[in-house]
């Protein structure tokens, strides 16, 4: 009896102790020993980065930690970060990492495993529900079963289609299959005022991302589970022929376009539809820069199989060279919190938490929210292995050459396949 009472007493004490920790945690208290510290946050020029920078004075006031934000375009973000990480200068304390870079940075030892911070009760906000992050986005920050950051930016690529334009020309939308998609492009193509589709076909990461969506729509893939290259099989050839044909109904300059040019054309209403990243939903609805407020709708990329979308999000991480790791973790926890994400929605920010997408008010105001919610469950990945950069270089050149009319589809894919195979062999995957 005595032993049983003692066990109960211990359990109650443990519960009370945990509850007191939970009840007693505050950002102000947790940050006390880091007050006066300055951390530097390197990030991409994306809506969540702008929003977090806007909300920063609140964090600085509560914590006494000063945060310097450095925004860079996607490629320059990596240039700056890698220079710092490789030379171990410790300039940056928080890094906005594209999920496709995870393998590369983990293997190079440039980013910290997050467990040590996530298990530290002094730093962790007990109310910060990690299960609230979309599983897919949470997975994006994992490598070998370990987390390396908190999901920050939801970037999913799917079809942006202008309902007003579709209705005006009597075209039913959204297209569901590639055949319907091509047919809608043809019907909506009225150059030079309106084109059937936009494309991000520059020799750049953008052309690879968009082409991957089309490849998946034709049930193709870069390589299979055993790392056998598949991109030049029948599906790959059909997909790339389709992608090339899209240029007939796209503005003449699309071989020089990236996602930025697609956004501008969608906002101006000069293209009826395009594959685009969901984080641009805010700019479509901003009357100061968009002529098509309230007209845009969102859907998976038309496919012959399951719905296709392409995940391209990012996480906030702590570089191993940082000299202020705990302060950086506190900032990351705050920047990815439900409160900050909810308040950022009106600013065009793209959240990574399920609970934010469930707010009915947001779903009513932004049609992209329900589309992202659906896409997040089915979206595809591009490779996260360190060899991906080299693959992008190969594919960007070859696919862009096809679109620009400099190379035949089969020749381009047949030239790419052995190079990608060689990279996979060199990487030790096969």
């Amino acid at each position, binding site marked *: 009896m005595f032993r049983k009472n003692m066990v109960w007493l211990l359990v109650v004490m443990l519960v009370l102790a945990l509850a007191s920790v939970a009840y007693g945690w505050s950002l102000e208290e947790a940050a006390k020993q880091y007050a006066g510290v300055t951390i530097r946050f390197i990030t991409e020029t994306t809506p969540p980065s702008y929003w977090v920078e806007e909300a920063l004075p609140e964090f600085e006031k509560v914590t006494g930690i000063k945060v310097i934000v450095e925004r860079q375009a996607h*490629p320059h973000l990596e*240039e700056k970060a*890698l*220079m710092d990480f*490789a030379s171990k200068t410790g300039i940056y304390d928080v890094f906005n990492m594209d999920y496709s870079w995870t393998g*590369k940075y983990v*293997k*190079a*030892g*440039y980013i910290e495993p997050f467990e040590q911070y996530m298990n530290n009760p002094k730093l962790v906000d007990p109310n910060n529900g990690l299960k609230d992050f979309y599983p897919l986005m949470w997975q994006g920050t994992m490598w070998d079963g370990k987390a390396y950051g908190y999901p920050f930016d939801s970037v999913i690529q799917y079809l942006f289609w202008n309902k007003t334009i579709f209705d005006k020309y009597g075209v039913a939308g959204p297209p569901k299959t590639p055949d319907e998609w091509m047919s809608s492009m043809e019907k909506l193509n009225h*150059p*030079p005022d309106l084109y059937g589709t936009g494309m991000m076909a*520059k*020799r*750049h990461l953008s052309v690879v991302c968009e082409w991957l969506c089309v490849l998946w729509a034709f049930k193709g893939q870069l390589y299979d589970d055993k790392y056998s290259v598949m991109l030049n099989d029948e599906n790959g050839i059909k997909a790339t022929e389709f992608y090339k044909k899209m240029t007939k109904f796209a*503005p*003449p*300059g*699309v*071989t*020089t376009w990236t996602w930025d040019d697609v956004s501008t*054309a969608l906002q101006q209403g*000069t293209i009826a539809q395009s594959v685009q990243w969901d984080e641009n939903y805010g700019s479509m609805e901003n009357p100061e820069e968009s002529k098509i407020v309230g007209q845009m709708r969102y859907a998976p990329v038309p496919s012959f199989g399951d719905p296709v979308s392409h995940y391209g999000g990012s996480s906030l991480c702590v570089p191993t060279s940082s000299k202020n790791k705990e302060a950086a973790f506190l900032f990351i926890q705050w920047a990815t919190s439900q409160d900050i994400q909810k308040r950022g929605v009106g600013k065009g920010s793209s959240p990574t938490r399920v609970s934010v997408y469930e707010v009915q008010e947001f779903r009513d105001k932004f049609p992209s929210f329900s589309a992202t919610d659906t896409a997040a469950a089915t979206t595809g990945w591009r490779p996260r292995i*360190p060899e991906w*950069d*080299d693959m*992008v*270089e190969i594919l960007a*050149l070859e696919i*862009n*050459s096809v*679109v*620009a*009319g*400099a*190379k035949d589809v089969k020749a381009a894919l047949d030239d790419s396949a052995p190079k990608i195979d060689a990279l996979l062999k060199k990487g030790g995957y096969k």
Partner: protein
Amino acid sequence: MSGRHLSLFQRFGFWISSSENKFKWSLLLPTLILLALITVYPTIYAFNLALSDYNLARSADSLQGYIGLQNFREILKDPSFWSSLKTTIFFTVVVVSIEFFLGLAIALILQGTVTGSKIVRTIILLPMIMAPIVVGLIWTYLYQSEFGLVTFILRKIHIMSYESAPLARVGTALPSLMFVDIWQWTPFLIMVLLAGLEALPTAPYEAARIDKASPFLVFRKITLPLLKPVILIVLVLRIMDAIRVFDIVYALTEGGPGEATDVLSMFIYRSAFYLWGIGKASAISFILLYIIMIVSVILVNLLSRTKETV
């Protein structure tokens, strides 16, 4: 002790030990140290990188370190390198030739012009004083496929169809870049050649006038030979610059579409900052350096021979 039996270092030591030379040496030393720090050391460091497997995206322990000439061997086997070298040579030959003939023609027209010459010269200088990356960004808008002014004009005068755009096609992208370079750098040739023309001695021209020589004969037999040193200097400078062209390519096309505008500098940039291969990028930089050195030495030799004959 006879100087014949001394080594070069010993002779150098004796030369320095004399008090007059010590003073000269102490005056030279700060400049030499500065030069070593900002030029010699980075060059040696870069060459060291060119012989290594250094890649920013891989941790230090995964690198093989010194790999000898492997980077150079890989580059020479890479078809993209040869394609970019070919594009660079074609770009350099075309733009420098057009800039030279255009520059010389305009300089001859402007020579001796008094009315409004200051205004004309200021206007001519404007493209040259702009940063190349700014020029690139301005022309990005001018060439834009939808609302670009140049694209609009080309379509209006039926040189380009509505289905095309200057930077979007393999056949038009490189000429479009060349046009920008010519627009920006012809003023440099005009100004240097004009300065050269205005500094020429008047006596040969007076003699030619007395002999009633035709203007073409005067140009061919007097102006051109006398102007030769200036022409060679300006060509050396422009060729060196054109071979290294980067800013406008980066801003306008990033080497695309396909490999149409992929010049050597862009190839280096891509190796260093898209693929993080600092070792390989350094090796390509040295190849570019050797090319520029060979071309410069040939032209400088020509120049010195010309000076001897003039």
